[in-house]
Structures are given as C-alpha cells and as structure tokens.
C-alpha cells in the first residue's frame, strides 16, 4: 500500500466566541479521492469548522495543511486560490448573468484594453460543463436554470481552480430524487479524479450512499471516524448524540375524535385542483408529494394567505371563510411554515417575543404588554417542549435549528389551536431534534389536536401519520391508512401512477 498524503488536514483547531468554545481542538483529514461525510447535530461545530476552513473565521489555535504544507486562510478568496472550494446550501449566483460569466465571476479572461475575451470564456466554460455532463450552454442566463442546474454552475465554478478539496454543505436540500442521482454521479467523478470531498448532510441515507468515511463532531469536539462500509446508522447516531435512537419505529396511534376540519372541492388556479379531505381531532394526516405538488399552497390557503378560486372549508361542521391569517387564527388554525427563518421567526428578536407574537395584543396589563404574562407563557412552553436556551432574552437567531423550530411550534400551541398545520417540520434539523419533534407531533395528536404534516421525507411521513394523502401535480392521488401505506405504493402514487384506476 502506497502511503498517501492527505489532500487536506486540520489539526487541533480551536475557536472560541464570547461564552462558547465552538471548536475544541478538532482534527480532521481528507485523503485525495475520498468522500468524507462530516456529521454532527446543529451546534456541534460543523459550520464553524467550515468557516475556519473557508477563511471567514481565523482559528484561535491549530493549523490547516494542504498537501501537508501548513497554510493560513486569509479570506474566502484565499481559500479558493489554495484549492479549497465550497458548494453552499444557499446558492450565490448572479441570476442576471450567463452561466459562463458566473463560472468565471471576478476573473473573466480579458483581451487588450480590458475587454472581455468572450471566445475563451465560452470555450473554457463549455469544457468544464462537459466534464460535468451538463446539458445547458455557457450562454444560458442563470436565472432561467432549475435549482439543480444552478448547483451545477456552482460546482463548475469550483472546477476553475485546481481544487484539492471540495466541500458540499447540505447540497441536496432542494433537489428532487432524480437530480440527486446526477449530483452523486458528479461527486463520484470528482473523487475518481483525485479530489478530496467533504460532504455535510443530515440525511443518513445519502451519507451511506455516497461517502467512504464518516467523521462525527459533538459539542465542538471530534468524536471519531468510521469507515462507511463497516458501520451502520445506529452506530453513527450513537456517536453523534451520545445515545441511541429508534427512528424506524412507528409511533403509537391515538384515539381519534370528530372531524375538526373538512375541505371540500378546494381549488386554487393552477396550483391545486378539486382537493377534498377531512382531519379528525387526535389524528395526524401526512401530505406527501414532490416539491410543487401543491401541498404548501393548500396549507397557505387554510391559513388565509391565499384565496381559493373554488370550494369550501368547514370547521367543526360549519363553513368558514378565511381571508387572512388573522381570520385563520381566530378560527383556531395555525401554520408552522416551511421556511423557518424566512416565515417563522423574527431572527433579531428574543425567544419570548417571538413566541408570544401572535397574541401580544392580548397579553396586556392596561395598555402595556405584561412582562409577567409573556414570561409565564414562555416558561410553560420552554418546559413543555424542552427548548434549550440560556434565557428568554436570547436572540432566536442564535438558537440551533431544532430549538428554533420548537419556538415556532410553541408560538402556535400557546394559542390553543384546533388545527395545527406543520410544513416540513424537520427541514435542516439534526437527527436528535428530529425524533424529538416527531414525538412531539404524536403527543399533540394524543392531546386532541388535529394535525396536518406536510413533508417531502418519506420516513417522516410514514412515522408520524395516521393517514397519508399522496399528492401529484396539484391533485390528491390517493389516501392511505397507516396500515396499508408502504414506501412502494407511496412512491407509485406520487410518481403520477393513478392507483385508483388499478384498484
């Protein structure tokens, strides 16, 4: 066996922030051609480590080696020049410019008098796109591409330098299954070309598909590495959260009551069409389908953010009209939205103020907001939902994803809703908090809430739902009881195979 040098090595990296030791002597290495998955709960230090590596933070101690030569990363540009390239979760492309201009942004080839050398720009870009098997041309405007193709442009941008290591940070968050397959092919290609890959994700199935090695961070410390082929999900989870979890197990079902909400023949333009369903109190109904199947739009309609073009909504048997979130809240409908940071929280506000926001007008003593009433509500739901925060004064933006999500859930529970709609309850949330939130949803049903869960993750839908509604292209294709639903028939349903015709 030939002794190989790591493409990238971090040794004893320490980074502290006021009051927090974010990284405590983390060491980590990536060999050329290796796909190295980096795991850890939110707050374990993954993002800080990557920011140190990318030159955004300077480490307090420790060294970064590239091909065993010590380097310092002064800035993101510096890191790129040294061969460490990031593919971010949030894309950073200029939508108005062409693919080629984006690939070479900031370093466009020029001719005399500073004129852009379009010929070599386009031919160089075309060569890179070919290496990635991309079907679009360098002249395409980036804004016209799908999310998946935009990600390809980001990857293409990474390949303009002699990349030693490419870091993928949750790259599949907004990709469809087919697009994921293409991405994984490209990652394999890159690794065959000798590039070291760091792959950050919360999704176990992906990590076991793509990686060759798994390293785990917990509480800012390095907890060990495992060869993917010789381990399993349980072992990795245990290393990550320090205990074992049973994620596969189906939770116990509650007693269901009378119909809390019924939707009859609801339509909204081209978004969804002729949708009818019922949710009983004490029941969790899962809505499963591809992104764009119309699930979120239905939720937004029930919450008064969209007006239906046809159909009716009934609460406790009576027809209601919902024109705004204020109406929805008054009728006891709550929505935990899919975009936690954009729609769920005011990140600059503290935990308490976020939680009491919808009812702040009612928590008053005379004309003023009552501190005591607010803190009482916050304390109650902090304990009930086990929210980890040093105090209610903490800015919500500083909490981990799981705790942020619990703040949003607490916000609506404290309003005592009849119907709770949860859109993508665990998006971007780590494994430990995920199972907590699943149990929480089941508990809510047990307490008599009618719960609608919208999710793109099949295991999640299967785990929490009493019934599953499969949607495709704005229509309900089929409803399954929890006894009859399986991964297979669910996949069939959402791929557009009309099972009702078969049945």
């Amino acid at each position, binding site marked *: 066996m030939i002794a190989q040098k790591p493409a990238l090595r971090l040794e004893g990296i320490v980074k502290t922030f006021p009051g927090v030791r974010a990284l405590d002597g983390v060491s980590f290495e990536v060999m050329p051609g290796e796909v190295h998955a980096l795991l850890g709960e939110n707050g374990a230090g993954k993002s800080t480590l990557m920011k140190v590596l990318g030159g955004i933070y300077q480490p307090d101690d420790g060294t970064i080696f590239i091909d065993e030569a010590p380097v310092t990363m002064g800035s993101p540009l510096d890191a790129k020049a040294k061969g460490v390239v990031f593919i971010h979760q949030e894309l950073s492309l200029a939508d108005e410019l062409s693919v080629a201009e984006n690939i070479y942004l900031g370093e466009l080839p020029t001719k005399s008098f500073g004129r852009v050398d379009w010929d070599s720009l386009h031919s160089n870009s075309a060569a890179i796109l070919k290496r990635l098997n991309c079907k679009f041309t360098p002249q395409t405007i980036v804004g016209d591409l799908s999310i998946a193709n935009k990600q390809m442009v980001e990857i293409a941008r990474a390949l303009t330098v002699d990349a030693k290591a490419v870091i993928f940070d949750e790259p599949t968050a907004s990709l469809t299954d087919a697009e994921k397959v293409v991405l994984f092919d490209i990652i394999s290609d890159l690794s065959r070309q000798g590039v070291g890959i760091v792959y950050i994700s919360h999704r176990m199935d992906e990590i076991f598909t793509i990686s060759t090695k798994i390293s785990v961070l917990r509480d800012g410390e390095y907890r060990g590495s495992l060869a993917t082929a010789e381990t399993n999900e349980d072992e990795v989870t245990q290393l990550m959260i320090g205990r074992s979890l049973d994620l596969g197990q189906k939770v116990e079902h509650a007693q269901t009551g009378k119909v809390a909400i019924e939707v009859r023949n609801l339509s909204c333009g081209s978004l969804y069409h002729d949708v009818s369903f019922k949710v009983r109190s004490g029941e969790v109904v899962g809505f499963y389908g591809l992104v764009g199947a119309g699930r979120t739009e239905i939720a937004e309609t029930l919450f008064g953010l969209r007006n239906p073009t046809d159909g009716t909504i009934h609460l406790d048997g009576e027809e209601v009209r919902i024109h705004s*979130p*204020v109406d929805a809240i008054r009728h006891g409908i709550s929505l935990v939205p899919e975009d936690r940071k954009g*729609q769920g929280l*005011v990140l600059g506000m503290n935990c308490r103020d976020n939680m009491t926001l919808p009812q702040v007008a009612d928590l008053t003593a005379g*004309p003023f*907001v009552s501190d005591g009433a607010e803190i009482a509500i916050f304390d109650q739901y902090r304990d009930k939902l086990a929210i980890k925060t040093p105090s209610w004064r903490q800015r919500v933006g500083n909490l981990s994803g799981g705790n942020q999500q619990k703040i949003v859930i607490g916000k609506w529970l404290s309003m005592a809703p009849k119907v709770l709609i949860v859109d993508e309850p665990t998006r971007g949330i780590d494994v430990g908090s995920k199972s907590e939130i699943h149990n929480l949803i089941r508990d809510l049903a047990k307490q008599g809430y009618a719960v609608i869960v919208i999710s793109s993750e099949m295991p999640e839908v299967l785990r929490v739902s009493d019934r599953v509604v499969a949607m495709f292209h704005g229509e309900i294709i089929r409803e399954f009881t929890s006894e009859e639903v399986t991964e297979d028939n669910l996949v069939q349903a959402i791929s557009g195979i009309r099972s009702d015709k078969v049945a």
Partner: protein
Amino acid sequence: MADERLKSLTSMLARHGILVAFILFMIGFTIANQRFLGLDNVLGVIRSSAILGVMALGVTFVVVSGNLDLSVGSMMSFSTIVVLDLHDKLGPSMAIPAMFAMTMALGAFIGFLVGYLKLNSLIVTLGMLSAIHGLTLTYSGGKNMDIVDKSGTWFSVFGQGAIFGIPVPVLMFGLLAVVLTVILAKTPFGRKVYAVGGNGTAATFSGIPRARVVFMTYIISSFCVATAGLIQASRSLGSQNTVGQGLELDVLAAVILGGASLLGGSGTVFKTVIGVLILGFIQNGLLLVGLQFYVQYVVTWVIIILAVWLDIAAKRGRLWSPIA
C-alpha cells in the same frame, strides 16, 4: 486577563458605543470651551434641537418598521405655512387642530401608498418631498406667511414660552419622547413595529396586519411633523415656504446616529434622542470653538460615517472584514 478586559470593553462599546462617543465628545468640547456645558448653553442647544428632535422621534417608528420617510422636511414647511395662514383666518384654537388634520392626512396618504399598496418607501417619500413642497407653494401663492398681530397672540407660547424656566419646545420634545418611548417599548403596537421591521413575512405569518402597522407609523411620523411645524410657526410667527427644507436628512442622520438600522427591526426612541443631542451639540460646539457655521456640514457628515463604521466594526469585532 488584559484580553478579557479588552473583550468586555469591546462588547460594552458595541452595546453603548453611541453613548460613550457622546460623553467623550462632551468632555472634549468642555475642555476646549468652558461655556460649553453651562446651563444656558445646554438649554439653548436642546431648544434649538427641539424641532429636529420632535421630527426624529416620529421617523424612528418609520425606520424601525423598515421604511424611510424623506418627506418630513417639506411636510414641516407645509404645517408651518398652513397654521400661520389659518391663525389669522380661524383664530389659533381652530387653526391648530385644522393644521394637524391636514398634515396627518398627508401622512395617511403616504402610509396608504407604502403600507397597503406596498410601494417602496424611498420612492414614495422622495416624491412626496417634492409634491408637498409644490402643495405648500400653491397654498401660499409663493409668498411668505406672517401673522398680522405678532404681539397680541397667545399662539407664541409653543415656540417662545417657558414653564419654570424651561422653554416650552424643550418640554414638548421631552413629553413626546417619553410618550413615544412607552408606545414603542411597552405596547403591543410597538412590538408589532419591531416584528414588521425585523421580518415582515414572519410578522404576516404570525397574523400581524403588516399594512396597518406601517400605515400607523406614518400617522405617528406626520403627527410629530405637525408638532414641529407648530413650534416653528409659534417661534417666528412668520415663515418662508422653505423653512423645513433639508431637515429630512438631519432627521435621518439623528436616527442613524442613535443606532437604528435602516433595514428595520432595531432602534429606540431614547437612542434617537441621544442622536439628536449629539447633532445639536456638535453644531453648537463647532460654533463655540470659533469655526464658521458651514464647517458643520462637513464635520457632521464625517461624524456620522465614523459612528456607522464603529457601530459595524464593534458588531463584527474588527474594523474591516471581507464579508459584511
């Protein structure tokens, strides 16, 4: 140990930077000129800052909700001209409420455009700056407005009177500052203003009527402008059409000096008061040390840039960073 101390100093500066700068600045000018901190001078500065200050209090609401108001200068000219004109036509006790109603109607119009029609506040209020100026000139026929009987009216009390030796404009500024502090910091409405400015989408998703909240911030702003116009008119009992011209920028400068983010969601009425006083004392201090008044335009700008820079630097922990 020294490192710890440095860190706590930095975090203290980050939180109260503007207050610290203000104190240092006052000490500096007091050393340069003993008269600077004399009671007469201090009261004089606050009195001359009162008009600007009253307007800045209202604009604080608009800025915290994530919008701008550049129309306050020309709106103040409008209020002043209207109340002077109506003074002789209706008498002061009718003129004042009529002027408040007219000014707040303008505020309601802006609030409708920005809140309900969701038009960009920069464009709307920049347009209104010019439109209201035109309205004022149309109203006055382009002439200066004067009260005929200047010595025989109680109307002068708002600009020239004093209670227990404290000038009435200062009292009005102080009273309004206290009331608006309480509204922004303690009432449900104030909380909603912060939520709308911090993340308007999340506010909507929490059932907060965003349009109405924005509308109300412009109502408050125009109420403050009307009050400023009342003080201005009462002080001089006669006025040009352009009396408020350019004040919108000083107002915005005071709000920013106070540390409110132009992106919305942060800032307090108290900090705006500090911002107003800093501006006032800078201008006064420069005159006292013998500089020409036009130097203040340059110095004010330099101080604002420094304040904003130090504010950002304190938040990110270094003076310059490749990312924001």
